[in-house]
């Protein structure tokens, strides 16, 4: 994974609350392989009507926001299912950072693993940022992960992020490689299981197996 330090670009005031992962990517698109790309599926049923015509009211469909790498939403962004395809869809569309007052737990974890930055700010700051982004042409923001700051014009907001997620993004580390360095501890733990919790290993009765 590539390290993430800053994201700079146009920010789209999505403004929606409780954006669940079924909105981010409807379930029917999830048979795709990653190679086919998920960008077109992002917010599919919000972006397009039943006939495939773009919904002009949807913020990302406005020409000034179509290439925005930053989204600003209201609370509980990414609630619902654990589908990592929600992050693939955002990423493949070109989104690199989502700013919101709170995120679904599994979504935020999935985001980090794919280099997508989730910046948590207060409710009042979210409203201020949404107002500012909706009013002007197509404002650029800079999200600085090291400084944990969002700046646009004169506005500067500090954001929160889990310290481990921050570090993982900054360093672009690979979780699996990192864990494999603990192999000896894992093997040792496994050996103790036989004495501490022998019943924890499944042993199917012979009839069915």
């Amino acid at each position, binding site marked *: 994974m590539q390290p993430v330090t800053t994201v700079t670009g146009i920010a789209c005031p999505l403004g929606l609350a409780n954006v669940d992962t079924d909105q981010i990517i409807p379930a029917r698109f999830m*048979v795709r392989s990653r190679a086919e790309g998920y960008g077109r599926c992002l917010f599919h049923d919000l972006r397009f009507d*039943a006939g495939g015509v773009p919904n002009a009211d949807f913020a990302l469909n406005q020409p000034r926001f179509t290439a925005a790498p930053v989204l600003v939403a209201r*609370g509980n962004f990414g609630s619902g*299912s654990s589908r990592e395809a929600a992050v693939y869809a955002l990423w493949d569309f070109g989104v690199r950072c989502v700013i919101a007052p709170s995120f679904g737990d599994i979504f935020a974890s999935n985001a980090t693993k*794919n280099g997508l930055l989730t910046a948590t700010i207060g409710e009042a700051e979210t409203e201020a940022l949404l107002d500012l982004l909706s009013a002007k042409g197509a404002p650029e923001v800079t999200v600085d992960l090291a400084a944990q700051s969002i700046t646009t014009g004169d506005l500067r907001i500090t954001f929160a992020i889990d310290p481990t997620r921050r570090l993982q993004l900054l360093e672009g580390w690979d979780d699996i490689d990192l864990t494999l360095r603990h192999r000896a501890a*894992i093997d040792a733990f496994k050996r103790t299981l036989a004495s*501490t919790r022998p019943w924890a290993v499944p042993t199917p009765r012979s009839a069915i197996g």
Partner: protein
Amino acid sequence: MNARTLFDKIWDDHVVATRDDGEALLWVDRHFVHEGSHHAFRTLDDRTATVAEPALTFGVADHYVPTLGRPMIVNQDIAGMIDRLSANARKHRFRLFDLADPNQGIVHVVGPELGLTLPGLLIVCGDSHTSTHGAFGAYAFGIGASEVAHVLTTQTLWQRKPKRMRITINGTLGPHVSAKDLALSVIVAVGANGAHGYALEYAGRAIVALSMEGRMTLCNMSIEAGARCAVIAPDEATFAWLRDRTYAPSGPAFETAMAHWRTLATDAGARFERELALDATDIAPMVTWGTSPDDALPINALVPIDARAEKLAYMGLTPGMPLADIAIDRAFIGSCTNGRLDDLRAAAAVLRGRSARVPGLVSPGSSAVKRAAEAEGLDRVFIAAGLTWAASGCSMCVGMNGDLLAPLERCASTTNRNFRGRQGPGSRTHLMSPAMVAAAVVTGRLTDVRTLPPLES
């Protein structure tokens, strides 16, 4: 030793290593995978890695399986998803309960049914409703595809310890009021993301009185309050459920296990960061009216007058209208929330001798539930009432296997999510208990099951 909560005890039993930043590497006792896990297997292929612990890995075909016309699969995309899971199971040598297996079903129904789910285990699955297994006193939670790949490769997972919240529910549930009504009431009390960052523990007399099925329904829905997981201390009901299950320990091993399981209770004086109390006696049958699970109200309430306009527009409702005036087009009974034998019995008890005003689909939570229901004639009750009796799978809970609502169709559903489009593009979902869905089927509108006129004998 300090007083510890039930959650702390399970956590402590699984720590392999800790890091300076406070994250712990945890051992995973059970890993369930399903068709949707294909991205993770792809990651393994890219790394030329293999599954570290095939004996602790179990696969189930559920999300994509058709529930009608089996074993024929017409849709090639769906057939491809199921074949891919079988191919990965063969390649990585883990046990798969595939379409043809007598134990096939929804992963969160099958795990407990087979005794793969046990108290004190750490259980993960690439599915958010993994919280279901917490009903047995396990630390169980959903993970994304990258984490699935991590568990497949290392049998471990990094976690930051969540805060602890106890929800104590005393009192007694009234007639026709079920664990689903309790779950929706909890979500309303906590909010759709109110339990974010918390491990929940349910305690109190109303929890002890719940059947294992009811406990699973409650823990299942806890993710809709944003919780990492939910746990209920194992007790005699838990042990009775587990004894003689296929994969549960047997003979002396069961007694050894039970001795450990009895220690899995919160110590007196253990600290919770948050405490909440509800009284089961106050709870009425609940229904959702909006597009978030916390948009739930007692059936005798009105659509809120201050509801957000876009929710009302999507759901096609007017503010202030009685919930009991909402007419439905269809009904669905099933899912990992309410597809167990208890749930089917509750619905059948309402439908016996009555007939459906609207079409409805019943999909048992597992093939074993289907057989058990058929053995007691529940299938005939549903069919006689005019509903369709289908095979087991996620079915109409999630729009990916062919069971769908048409746009604008309104469904009374025993599932867990009323999100926009969850049951198909433009679908409108009202969540409620199996008995309440059955009542809605009989009248064609949302109905308080307690007010259905008695059958003439």
